[in-house]
């Protein structure tokens, strides 16, 4: 099946373990809650084409392991990400306190220009809330992040989070603030011909020999 899209954006999903990163991704792609899920070791992937301001955008999403010790491994996934969902759990102060570290990782390892949306997940568990909406939105403002509270369980604001982040990136491309041609921008043009023209290495025929093993 050939897919047609105008742009391809690389996205990251980052944040502490157990905040629901994989469930957000699953809800976004499958439109349902993933009830029984393994914790992510290393990285998982997903992709989906969405329509944003008359453009078809393919999101290529890298869902990373949250446990701190995986950082030495997950660093290699950050390169060239255009956008990120930075996730914490509204019922866990600890996951909120870790945001600054995640943020500096993303800006340092992906790109200074990475567009980040802060997601306060598990919105459905309001009774157990440890982080107020106001507090988080202030943090978002101070750090130039967009902000939504989401629920991977009910699906509330999940699609919106991805769409808003993509829309901001598109705006930045249109205003010239982001240059898709720049190496490591995390953005590619969708048109295959154009892509091949611009990236001669990809136009080469791939090796046709059998694996010699």
């Amino acid at each position, binding site marked *: 099946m050939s897919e047609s899209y105008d742009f391809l954006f690389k996205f990251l999903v980052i944040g502490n373990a157990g905040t629901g990163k994989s469930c957000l991704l699953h809800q976004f792609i499958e439109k349902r809650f993933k009830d029984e899920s393994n*914790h992510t070791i290393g990285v998982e992937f997903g992709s989906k084409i969405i329509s944003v301001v008359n453009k078809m955008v393919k999101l290529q999403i890298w869902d990373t392991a949250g446990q701190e010790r995986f950082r030495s491994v997950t660093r290699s996934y950050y390169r060239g990400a255009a956008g990120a969902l930075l996730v914490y759990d509204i019922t866990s102060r600890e996951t909120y306190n870790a945001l600054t570290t995640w943020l500096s990782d993303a800006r340092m390892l992906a790109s200074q220009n990475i567009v980040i949306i802060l997601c306060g997940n598990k919105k459905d568990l309001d009774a157990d809330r440890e982080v107020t909406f106001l507090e988080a939105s202030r943090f978002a403002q101070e750090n130039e992040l967009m902000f939504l509270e989401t629920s991977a369980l009910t699906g509330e604001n999940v699609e919106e989070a991805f769409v808003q982040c993509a829309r901001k990136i598109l705006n930045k491309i249109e205003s010239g603030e982001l240059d898709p041609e720049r190496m490591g921008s995390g953005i590619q043009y969708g048109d295959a011909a154009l892509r091949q023209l611009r990236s001669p290495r990809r136009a080469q025929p791939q090796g046709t020999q059998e694996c010699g093993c």
Partner: protein
Amino acid sequence: NEKLKEGFSSGSVQREAKWIKIIDQWDRILSKKSSKVRPCQKGIPASLRAKCWPLLCGAANRMKQHENLYKTLDEQPALQSWVDVIERDLDRQFPFHEMFQSKDGHGQRGLFRVLKAYTQYQPDEGYCQAQGPVAAVLLMNMPAQAFWCLVQISEQYLPGYYSPLLEGVLFDAAMLTWVLKKTCPAAHKHLQNHGVEPLMFATDWLMCLFTRHLPFNTLLRVWDLFFCYGVRVLLQVAAVLVRRVLGRAEQRKQCQGQMETLEKLRGVKEEVHDEDDEFIAEVRFRFLNLIGL
């Protein structure tokens, strides 16, 4: 009818008898470094795995040396921060396996005890999420020795795999690049061309010892080999998996691009059967080849 049965199973009965003999003479075999342990080629009979794995990996010995240690750790409280993290993960291990389904079932409870004890035994390392599925498979096979097997795996077989910096994983991911280059050059080239690094697809494979990526019976046979030969088996299995997915030119043609290649690698489980003799033979063949390099 009985005779027929006997005929069918005679191979495995013989194999079992052979293994029972090996177990009986374990100390002598080990001291002589005899090559008798080799029957792992055909896999350890299922009925004897619980006995063999702890002997092979040295867990049985450690248990003897530290007779009451696990019991003591088990009775003492652990650091609450570790307890919280472990508890959160308990229902995320083999959620479809009967043993681990219920919150207070013996599977989840056993898992908690083993993982908690490890954080007390090795406080500098604590708990790594990838130890969960490994401990779960150990518990399925030999609940009483699971803790000491986990210790042996984490300390002797895979040092640096679960520690705070994961230096062992980083090193072996780099090794895998080398192994692929040597044993499967076309696939290696494909990965390079598309910017796919082993850390992107093999972190989970290596750290969880393929628990999530191989059909169960084939997984057990891979572990048989692993307990005999150690970490190189993991690298060989990884190489064979890559080759199953990207070994042929038409397979590589189907996945032009980084994400396409990663998707393909993620679906690797479909390329391996349960009781996949051919797969195991390939792993062993590659393994011998690698020694020859």
